[in-house]
């Protein structure tokens, strides 16, 4: 008996799907659709929280990510750093991820110690930023392990948690911008660049609510549903979810970058997944109908 087309498609070689997905990821990078990446409500709230900071505000940035999550979150990081530097914010960095320190070092070299949008930057009409000087405009405290416990320690004493030294070994009392910055509650804003655990969730649970800290977070798309309840309750005052959120944030800051380029990949990639779902269900229901018909006859 001749095999029904739905049965043949059930055994469809999945390498074809891999090929289509590969093309969906690669082609938009070379031929962008250029659809506007409009920010959602949570992303706008994060932007507004940074925008409302006074000139020279003191901001703590926790960079808790690994290379795997950089495509989704790094565009937000670059955009928010530009926004903070435009406000001449004093920045203090730390990380609770053991995979992160070399990434953090690279970010210091590429986004902090050089201008992200110097005068004459093509396609950018906002305020220019300037290179930041280590231990003058910014301090990198480095890495500490200890998950929730160490985050709780940041909430009571940064000096104790980091043995009173910055990552480069400079004593914190010798750094003028660290005066008055003893614990997380002394900062005007906490920015959480968080790819998982420990990260934004632990900051909310261990210190955020207890100290009533103003915190915004950026997370991967899959973590958005984990953190969205905290935005709804006001424990996070802004939330940037995944690449779509990063692209929206870049739009708000006015400097499109990797997030905006990645949003095109997201457009086509999502369409491929939706088509795969629809196609799979058509095959499934056609096969079921055919088997019923055959059974009836």
């Amino acid at each position, binding site marked *: 008996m001749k095999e029904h087309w739905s049965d043949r498609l059930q055994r469809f070689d999945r390498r074809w799907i891999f090929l289509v997905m590969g093309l969906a990821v690669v082609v938009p990078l070379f031929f962008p659709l250029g659809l506007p990446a409009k920010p*959602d409500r949570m992303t706008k709230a994060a932007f507004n929280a940074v925008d409302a900071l006074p000139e020279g505000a003191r901001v703590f940035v926790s960079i808790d990510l690994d290379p795997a999550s950089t495509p989704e979150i790094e565009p937000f990081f670059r955009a928010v750093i530009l926004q903070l530097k435009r406000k001449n914010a004093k920045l203090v960095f730390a990380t609770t991820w053991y995979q992160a320190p*070399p990434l953090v070092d*690279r970010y210091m070299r590429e986004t902090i110690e050089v201008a992200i949008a110097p005068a004459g930057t093509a396609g950018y009409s906002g305020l220019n930023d300037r290179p930041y000087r280590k231990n003058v405009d910014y301090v990198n405290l480095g890495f500490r392990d*200890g998950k929730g*416990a160490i985050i709780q*320690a940041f909430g009571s004493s940064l000096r104790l948690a980091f043995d009173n030294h910055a990552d480069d070994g400079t004593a914190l009392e010798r750094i003028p911008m660290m005066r008055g910055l003893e614990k997380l509650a002394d900062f005007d804003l906490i920015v959480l660049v968080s790819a998982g655990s420990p990260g934004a969730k632990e900051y909310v649970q261990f210190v955020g609510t207890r100290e009533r800290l103003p915190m915004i977070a950026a997370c991967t798309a899959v973590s958005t549903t984990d953190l969205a309840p905290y935005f709804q309750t006001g424990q996070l005052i802004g939330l940037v979810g995944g690449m779509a959120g990063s692209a929206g944030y870049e739009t708000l800051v006015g400097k499109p970058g990797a997030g905006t380029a990645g949003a095109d990949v997201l457009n086509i990639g999502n369409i491929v*997944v939706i088509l795969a779902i629809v196609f799979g269900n058509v095959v499934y229901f056609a096969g079921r109908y055919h088997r019923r018909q055959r059974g009836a006859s």
Partner: protein
Amino acid sequence: MKKTLPLLFGMVFGAYAVIEFYIPHHLVGSLSDELRSWAAILAAAAFIIGGINILQVTWPKIRRREPDWQYKVVLLAAAAVMLLAGLPWHKLGDTPATPTVLIEAVPGPAHLVVNAPADVTIQVGAVIAPPRPDGARYQADVGPGTVEVKLSRRVPGYRTQLAPITITDGQRVTVTGDPPMLWGREGRVFVWIYDHIFSPSNATMFALLAFFVASAAFRAFRARNLEAALLLGAAILMMLGRAPLGRAISDVFPDLAQWILDVPSNGGRRAIMMGAAIGAIATALRIILGIERSHLGSDA
């Protein structure tokens, strides 16, 4: 004693961690800070124990040539390489922190010469000297006074050399430097391995998800019943609503996606979180009261 002491520690510190939350006294705060420092030290020590544990688990399997033992050799070799690359070996030697400075009396205006290898960026004051094909050699008449010469390699992992120079008319100052390679976390070898092996491998593992999600969407995501159909519908709406394409088609998609996130998703997520939190409280109470002992080992 082997069981009682850990149990006692668990009870005392567990109960203290709960109680201190409600006592805003500075003495309690100081003790809590101290305990949190202990926690950080314990977490750091856990890395060492983890290393020993990897050896204990993998070495016997390699000796017995168990299936896939070759991967375990790779694991141990990679761990050993990262350990060696991560140690600050440069501190053992006598590497020059500053460039050598030679001052000669030469008639005429103050003259500065900087010698460095071709891949070194020479910065004199605020001016970065452009690379030159003849070996990045910088040579210029300068005004009398103090100027800082900074030598840094264009790739990370090398020490930056600084030399503050005070120069007057009638002097020629020659600065010769070669920024030495660093070891340890900021060293060249560690950074190279991180940038060229760890980062691409880590990113590749995550990127493969896209392909498996697409494949699973075709093969497994079936509307077999009402619940599955609802899940499918919500997934499609979320995917359309969270991508710019959805908004380009209709403003309804982002609004619907936001509603799904705000109402059913957050409601369900909150219920799970509350349930998990109550479970965690119950487990913590069992540990504090000494009822739960599984964390002390199988024989406890």
